[in-house]
C-alpha cells in the first residue's frame, strides 16, 4: 500500500535526487531510464515524419509537400527510427536495466563506459538533429552512392557523422554486455540456466561489435568523399558505386538481427511467465539466436544471399513453433504484456514468411524495391520489434518503478496497436505486388484506395502509441504499488524488491534450478540467498 513504510525503503530511484545525480550516474538502472527518455523522444520524432508521409500519400498527387521535402521525410524517418530508436531501444533500455539483475550481478562490468555510451548516443543524435534542422537529408537511409556522395545537395556529411558517432554507443554497449555475461554471473548461474533474454542480448552484442565498425568506416568514407572529392565510389574517377552497397549491407543485413533478436528475448520471457511453463526447446531457441547471427553475415552473390536468407528463416521458424508449443497445456493469462507477445508471434510469422518471397530470386526480381519490401520489414520492425519493446516495458514496469500501470487501458492499447498496424501495412503487400515502387512521392491513381486504407490504419496506430505514453507517465504517480514479484514470475530480477536497491541484491543470490522453473512453487528451492564466495 502507499503507506509511509514503503516510502522509507531506499532504492535506486530515491537514493539521491537532483539532475547531477542522474546525469553523472553509473547505475545501470538509471542509465536505462536516461536511454528510455531519449529513445521515446526519437520514436515520436520518427513517428511525426511517418505521419507526414502517410498524409501525403492519401492522394496520388504531391499536394502536401514538395518532392524534395518528401524525400527528406522518408530519409529522416528511416534514419531516426533505425539508428536512434530500433537499434538502441531494447538493448539500451531493457538490456541495461535487466542483464545485471537477471544474472545476479550488482552492475555491468564497466559502469562508467555505460554512461559514456549514453553521452555518445546523445552527441550523435544532436548531429543528426542538427542536420534535420538545417534542412535535412534526402538520400534514403541507405545512402546509396553516387547519389549521396556526389549528387545530393542536402546535409549528408552532417547526418552520417551523427550516425558514425552513435555507432560507437552500440559498440561499447555490446562490449559491456559480452564481458558482463561472461564474467559476472552469480554462483550457480551456468550458461544453460541463463534466461533467453540474456542469450538474445549476447548474440546481439556479437553483431554490435563485429558489424557496427564496418558501417562506421563505410559512412566515414562517404563523408570524406563528399568533403574532399576522393573518388572511391565515383564511377567518373574509376570508383565503384556498388562497393558502397556491399560495405553498407555487410553491416545492415546483420543490423536487422540487432533489431529483432532482443525482441525475441523479451518474448521468451513473456510467453513463459504468462503460460507458467518452461520454454519449449530452450536449447534450440538459444542456439537459433547464434545461428541467426552467423547466417546474417554475407551479402555477396545473389545465389548465396538467397540461400542464406532462406536458411536464416529456419531458426526463426523454430522459435515461433517453440513459443507456440510453450502455450500447450499451460496456464495462460491475458495481461497486456501477453497480448503484445501473442501479437508478436502472429505478426512475426507473417513478416518472416513474406521474407521468403524476397529471398526467392524469381519473385524478388518483381517485388524488390516495391512496397512489398516496405510491408515486410515493417511487419518485423514495427509489428514485431516495437510490440516486443512495449510488451517488455509493460512487463518490467512494476520492477522498474514499483508501480503497476492500469491494466484494462493497457489491454485496449495493445489491441488498438495490433489492429491499426495490420490495417496500415497489409495493404502495402498488395501495393507492392501491383508494382508501386518505394520512395515515391506521387503515384498512379489506381493505387489510391490501398494507400488510403494504409493511412487510415496509421492514424489508428498513432492513437495506440500515444495511449501508453500517457498512462505510463500517469502510473508513476498514481499507479497501484507493486510488490517484489508482480507477475509471480521466475527469474532473478523478481527476487529483489521493486524498485531494486542500487546494488540490486542485498545478498548475492545462488541459482539452484533451470530457467523458467514454473513448476516449482517454493522460491527457496530455486534460489538460495546465502552469500557464496566467488570461486
Amino acid at each position, binding site marked *: 500500500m502507499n503507506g509511509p513504510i514503503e516510502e522509507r525503503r531506499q532504492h535506486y530511484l530515491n537514493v539521491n535526487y537532483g539532475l547531477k545525480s542522474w546525469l553523472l550516474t553509473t547505475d545501470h538502472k538509471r542509465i536505462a531510464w536516461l536511454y528510455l527518455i531519449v529513445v521515446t523522444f526519437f520514436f515520436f520524432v520518427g513517428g511525426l515524419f511517418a505521419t507526414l508521409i502517410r498524409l501525403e500519400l492519401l492522394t496520388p498527387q504531391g499536394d502536401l509537400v514538395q518532392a524534395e521535402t518528401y524525400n527528406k521525410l522518408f530519409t529522416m524517418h528511416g534514419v531516426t527510427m533505425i539508428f536512434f530508436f530500433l537499434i538502441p531501444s531494447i538493448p539500451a533500455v531493457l538490456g541495461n536495466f535487466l542483464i545485471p539483475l537477471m544474472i545476479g550481478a550488482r552492475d555491468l562490468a564497466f559502469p562508467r563506459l555505460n554512461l559514456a555510451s549514453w553521452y555518445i548516443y546523445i552527441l550523435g543524435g544532436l548531429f543528426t538533429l542538427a542536420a534535420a534542422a538545417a534542412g535535412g537529408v534526402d538520400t534514403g537511409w541507405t545512402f546509396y552512392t553516387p547519389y549521396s556522395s556526389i549528387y545530393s545537395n542536402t546535409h549528408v556529411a552532417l547526418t552520417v557523422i551523427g550516425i558514425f558517432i552513435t555507432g560507437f554507443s552500440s559498440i561499447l554497449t555490446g*562490449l559491456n554486455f*559480452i564481458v558482463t555475461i561472461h564474467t559476472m554471473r552469480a554462483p550457480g548461474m551456468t550458461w544453460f540456466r541463463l534466461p533467453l533474454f540474456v542469450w538474445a542480448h549476447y548474440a546481439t552484442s556479437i553483431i554490435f*561489435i563485429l558489424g557496427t*565498425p*564496418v558501417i562506421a568506416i563505410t559512412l566515414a568514407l562517404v563523408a570524406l568523399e563528399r568533403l574532399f572529392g576522393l*573518388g572511391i565510389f565515383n564511377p567518373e*574517377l574509376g570508383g565503384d558505386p556498388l*562497393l558502397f552497397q556491399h560495405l553498407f549491407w555487410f553491416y545492415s543485413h546483420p543490423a536487422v538481427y540487432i533489431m529483432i533478436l532482443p525482441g525475441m528475448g523479451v518474448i521468451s520471457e513473456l510467453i513463459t511467465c504468462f503460460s507458467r511453463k518452461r520454454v519449449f526447446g530452450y536449447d534450440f531457441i538459444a542456439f537459433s539466436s547464434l545461428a541467426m547471427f552467423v547466417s546474417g553475415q554475407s551479402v555477396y552473390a545473389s545465389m548465396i544471399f538467397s540461400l542464406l536468407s532462406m536458411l536464416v528463416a529456419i531458426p526463426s521458424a523454430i522459435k515461433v513453433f517453440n513459443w507456440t508449443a510453450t502455450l500447450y497445456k499451460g496456464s495462460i493469462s491475458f495481461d497486456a504484456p501477453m497480448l503484445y507477445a501473442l501479437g508478436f508471434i502472429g505478426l512475426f510469422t507473417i513478416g518472416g514468411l513474406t521474407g521468403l518471397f524476397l529471398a526467392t530470386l524469381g519473385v524478388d526480381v518483381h517485388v524488390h524495391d516495391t512496397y512489398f519490401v516496405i510491408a515486410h520489414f515493417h511487419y518485423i520492425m514495427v509489428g514485431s520489434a516495437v510490440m516486443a519493446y512495449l510488451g517488455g516495458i509493460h512487463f518490467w514496469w512494476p520492477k522498474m518503478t514499483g508501480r503497476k500501470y492500469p491494466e484494462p487501458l493497457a489491454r485496449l492499447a495493445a489491441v488498438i496497436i495490433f489492429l491499426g498496424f495490420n490495417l496500415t501495412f497489409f495493404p502495402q503487400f498488395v501495393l507492392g505486388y501491383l508494382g508501386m515502387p518505394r520512395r515515391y512521392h506521387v503515384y498512379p491513381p489506381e493505387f489510391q484506395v490501398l494507400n488510403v486504407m494504409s493511412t487510415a490504419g496509421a492514424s489508428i496506430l498513432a492513437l495506440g502509441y500515444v495511449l501508453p505514453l500517457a498512462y505510463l507517465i500517469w502510473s508513476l504517480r498514481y499507479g497501484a504499488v507493486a510488490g517484489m514479484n508482480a507477475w509471480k514470475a521466475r527469474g532473478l530480477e523478481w527476487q529483489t524488491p521493486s524498485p531494486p536497491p542500487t546494488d540490486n541484491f542485498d545478498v548475492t543470490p545462488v541459482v539452484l534450478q533451470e530457467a523458467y522453473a514454473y513448476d516449482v512453487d517454493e522460491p527457496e528451492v530455486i534460489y538460495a540467498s546465502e552469500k557464496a564466495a566467488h570461486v
Partner: protein
Amino acid sequence: MSDFPAIHAHQFDDAAQQHEASWLGMWVFLATEVMFFGGMFLGYLLYRTTYPQAFASASNHLDLWLGTINTAVLICSSFTMALAVRAAQIGQKRPIIIFLVLTIVLGAVFLGIKFTEYHVKFEEHLVPGSAFAYDGPLGSSAEIFFSFYFAMTGMHALHMIIGLGLLTTLVVKTARGRFSVSYNTPVELVGLYWHFVDIVWIFLFPLLYLVGRHLR
C-alpha cells in the same frame, strides 16, 4: 598469475573477476578495431586488383626509406612496451617509467616521420581532392590509391596519438605508485592496444609501400 589485493571496483566480487573482465573487454575492443580497419583493407584490396598498374605506379611515389625506418621504429616501440609490461609484472617502478617513456619517444618519432611524409605529398600535389595532380594517364586510379593511403595511415596515426595519450597517463600513474605486482592491469591492457596498432602497421606497410617493388 600473482594474487590480487582486496581493492576492486564495487560491481566486481573480487580483484580476480575485475582482471578477467578488463582483459576480456580489451580483447573484444580489439576485435571491433579489426573490423574497423578491415573495411578499409577490403576496399583497398578490391581496387588494387582492379587497377594493378596504377596502384604500383602510385606506390612508387611513397618514400620507401622513410617507410622502412618507421616500421623498424614501431617494432622497437613494441619491444620497449613489452619490457614495460614485464617490469610492471615484477613491480619495478623505475624501469616501467623508463620503458614507457622510450615507447612514447619511439611513437613520437614515428608520427614525426609520418607527418613529414604527408607534408612532402602535399608539396607534390598528391593529396586527393581539387589540388591533386598526377602525370600520366593513370591519374584517377592513382588518386584512389592515395585516398586509401591517407585514410588508412591517417586512421592508424590517430590510433597512435590516442596510444601516446594512454601511455602518458600510465607514466603519471606509475610515478604516483599506482601499480604493483598485484595490480598492473592497465599497463598490460595498454600494451595489448599498442601491439595491435603495431600489427596494423605491419600490414599497412607492405600493402602500401611495397607494391610492385621487385629487386632488380
